[in-house]
């Protein structure tokens, strides 16, 4: 099988093919061209069927563009790598490009989702944002990465978990639309950590047992005593550094952090649903993206309201597991056990706090 990225001019040619054996490909190409006015890529596969006929198939493919802000805070920056262009000498550019591809692959190949919006939205990223800028963020339309301050943080493109995290903010924006404050905000953060971790696990073909369950591994410089920014398996243990202090994430609902900073501690309290996901994946075993990830993805699309809280989300995961795997399935039992393990009931009512 040959695979390639199809540029728009070739899509146009395929759409014009009239030979019967190319009918399906022509139809797919026409739809691809109609669906999206912006330039758009698709993956073209050639195979031979049982009668040795050539079969051409089009499937979803990412359309990535990376900009370079050149250490300013101006977006999108100068375009430095477009879809299909070869890697260059700028590590941050190529890490961002590869991470966008790995994220697209998880959503497309595992969950059948065509990009962030499910409709092939182009994936845009900007690197080298700001001076000594120690952050990565999603601005509602693109991912933006700083180079780090070189004292605490290095490049924010260094981990697939960060890139998957940022793009998943886009997926949540187009689906559940969880508000970014308090419990719904912590769920929004956790969903980004869950799928950010799954992007890495899928790319490395890790199991729940072999995955690190770390978010942002490799972002800290060697001067920091810590392995990552967060641990989904053991929230509160990712770092313990004289300058930064100790990882403040709670691992269960009894230790939910009440604060006015950070939108109500969305980056702290995400530790609670993060660990619930880990417990579900651990109990089910195997590849976490297959069953645990599927339950979470189904939940994201299940019609959550923007102000869904932990208990509401937990109940929705059990409902999603029951719908897909059956009410008395191992998946439902695992979902219940996972939330119980962090002190959140799955009957819609919160405990603790």
């Amino acid at each position, binding site marked *: 099988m040959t695979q390639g990225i199809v540029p728009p001019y070739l899509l146009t040619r395929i759409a014009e093919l009239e030979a019967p054996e190319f009918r399906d490909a022509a139809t797919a190409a026409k739809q691809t061209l109609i669906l999206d006015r912006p330039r758009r890529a698709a993956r073209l596969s050639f195979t031979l069927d049982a009668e040795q006929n050539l079969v051409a198939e089009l499937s979803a493919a990412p359309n990535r563009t990376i900009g370079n802000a050149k250490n300013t805070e101006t977006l999108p920056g100068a375009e430095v790598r477009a879809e299909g262009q070869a890697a260059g000498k700028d590590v941050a550019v190529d890490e961002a490009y590869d991470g966008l591809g790995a994220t697209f692959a998880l959503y497309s190949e595992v969950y059948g989702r065509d990009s962030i919006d499910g409709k092939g939205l182009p994936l845009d990223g900007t690197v080298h944002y700001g001076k000594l800028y*120690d*952050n*990565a*963020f*999603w*601005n*509602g*339309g693109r991912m933006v990465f700083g180079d780090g301050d070189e004292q605490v*943080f290095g490049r*924010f493109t260094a981990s697939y978990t*960060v890139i998957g*995290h*940022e793009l998943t*903010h886009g997926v949540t*924006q187009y689906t559940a639309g969880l508000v*970014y404050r308090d419990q719904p905000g912590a769920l*929004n953060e956790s969903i*980004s950590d869950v799928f950010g971790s799954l992007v890495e696990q899928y790319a490395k073909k890790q199991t729940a047992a072999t995955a690190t369950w770390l978010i*942002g591994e490799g*972002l800290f410089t060697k001067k920091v005593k810590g392995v990552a*920014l967060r641990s989904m398996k053991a929230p509160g243990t990712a770092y313990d550094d004289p300058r*930064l202090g100790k990882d*403040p994430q*709670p691992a269960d609902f009894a*230790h*939910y*952090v*009440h*604060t*006015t*900073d*950070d*939108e109500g*501690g*969305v*980056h*702290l309290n995400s530790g609670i649903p993060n660990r619930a996901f880990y417990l579900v994946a651990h109990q089910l075993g195997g590849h976490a993206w297959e069953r645990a990830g599927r339950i979470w993805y189904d939940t994201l699309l299940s019609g959550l309201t923007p102000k869904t809280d932990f208990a509401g989300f937990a109940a929705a995961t059990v409902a999603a597991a029951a719908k897909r795997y059956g009410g008395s399935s191992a998946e439902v039992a695992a979902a219940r056990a996972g939330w119980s393990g962090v002190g959140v009931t799955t009957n819609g009512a919160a405990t603790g*706090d």
Partner: protein
Amino acid sequence: MAQRQATEPSPAAAAIRILVVRSGGFAGIPQQWHVESRDDVDDWTTLVTACPWDQVGTDPASRDRFIWRIEARMPRTTRTAQVPDALLVGPWRALVDRVQDAGSHG
């Protein structure tokens, strides 16, 4: 129930006191700076009053961006604002830059 608040500087008899707390960000690790001064009250007052304290604005679309909590205790008044990173420009940026340069960190 756990409580987590950024540590406030100890009260002092300073004429002005400005606290800047940066929270949020992908890492969620807060940073803070503060300055206390009796000497440059006019300069600081100019910087503080240049900021649009009552018209900060919001940035509802962004995720993982920093949020800047700025508290300015002046001789006659105390002002407080939560400024999204995307809006930390112009007079806000000038004030924060000055606090970061002149004040103590941590």
